[in-house]
């Protein structure tokens, strides 16, 4: 790829774009942002504004790290920061929601710091080590955030479930 082999670049993109796109989508719930982030990640690789160094971790965690920075920047722009939506906000269209959408919304309503950990470890099947590299934090932090994120999800889903039963 570094020598200008377009097919090599294309192969790399095809192999890696899916997880990056899904990560961005699960973090933002927005297909347009997910598409933009995916493109920007590989563009950064191409323009060498993001330089991968194998000694610092796997390529997957490097790409997740680049994607994460871009996602967080987007979330800041759209003012969707730690002020996550309350379960009450989600009530309105609860009746037409399927289980998957409930979970998706519950994940999206997590604060970004827990959301990214849940998305990487539970939705993307990333190892704790890779997640720690991507999130630039110790593995212990990944574990604790994951526990906290899951417990927040449990309460949200409990709430959704209760509302559904009541409707």
């Amino acid at each position, binding site marked *: 790829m570094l020598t200008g082999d377009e097919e090599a670049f294309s192969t790399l993109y095809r192999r890696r774009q899916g997880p990056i796109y899904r990560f961005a989508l699960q973090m933002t719930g927005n297909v347009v942002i997910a598409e933009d982030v995916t493109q920007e990640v590989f563009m950064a690789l*191409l323009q060498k504004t993001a330089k991968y160094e194998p000694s610092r971790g796997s390529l997957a965690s490097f790409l997740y790290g680049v994607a994460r920075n871009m996602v967080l920047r987007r979330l800041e722009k759209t003012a969707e920061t730690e002020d996550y939506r309350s379960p009450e906000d989600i009530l309105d269209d609860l009746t037409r929601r399927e289980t998957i959408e409930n979970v998706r919304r519950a994940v999206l309503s997590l604060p970004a710091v827990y959301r990214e950990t849940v998305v990487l470890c*539970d939705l993307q099947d990333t190892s704790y080590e890779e997640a720690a590299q991507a999130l630039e934090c110790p593995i212990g932090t990944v574990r604790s955030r994951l526990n906290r994120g899951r417990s927040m999800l449990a309460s949200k889903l409990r709430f959704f479930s209760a509302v559904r039963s009541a409707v």
Partner: protein
Amino acid sequence: MNEEDVLRALETLAEADRELEAPPAVEVRLRSAFRKKYQRRAWPYFAALTTALASFLLLIRVPPPPTLEIPPVAAPAAPVLAVTAPAPKVVHRQALQPKEVMTDFYPLMEAPPPFERGELLRVSLPASAMRTVGLPVSEDRLGETVQADVLVGEEGLARAIRFVKYER
């Protein structure tokens, strides 16, 4: 809802999203950016390589001379350029201000692809290269060097050539 339920719910979502991918348009845009980046960088090397190759092909395609001497009268259809000996190195070129006289372009490809963009490269070739496009060169000057402009297309193909003579 306990942790196991949460994990199961997350698994369901992960399963539902497993096939999701970026739209094909993203790859198209990236490939286009890739091509733009690397073609621009590779272009001078590619052109130089092509020119060298074209020169080599011209060299090896020199046909055996039919006669020993070229008649003094030039063919009317093709522009004729006599090969002259290179100017002595000690002469101050600026003072003499030699004038460039060029032949027409001679195609190097029989059916070239459409031409969009290219570059004109000045190269030095043995005079025998002129014979490959039908220009007369006397036997005793076949080994001399002549200047030529090679038109190389954006795709790197040497498309045409013209020869240059300096007159004072």
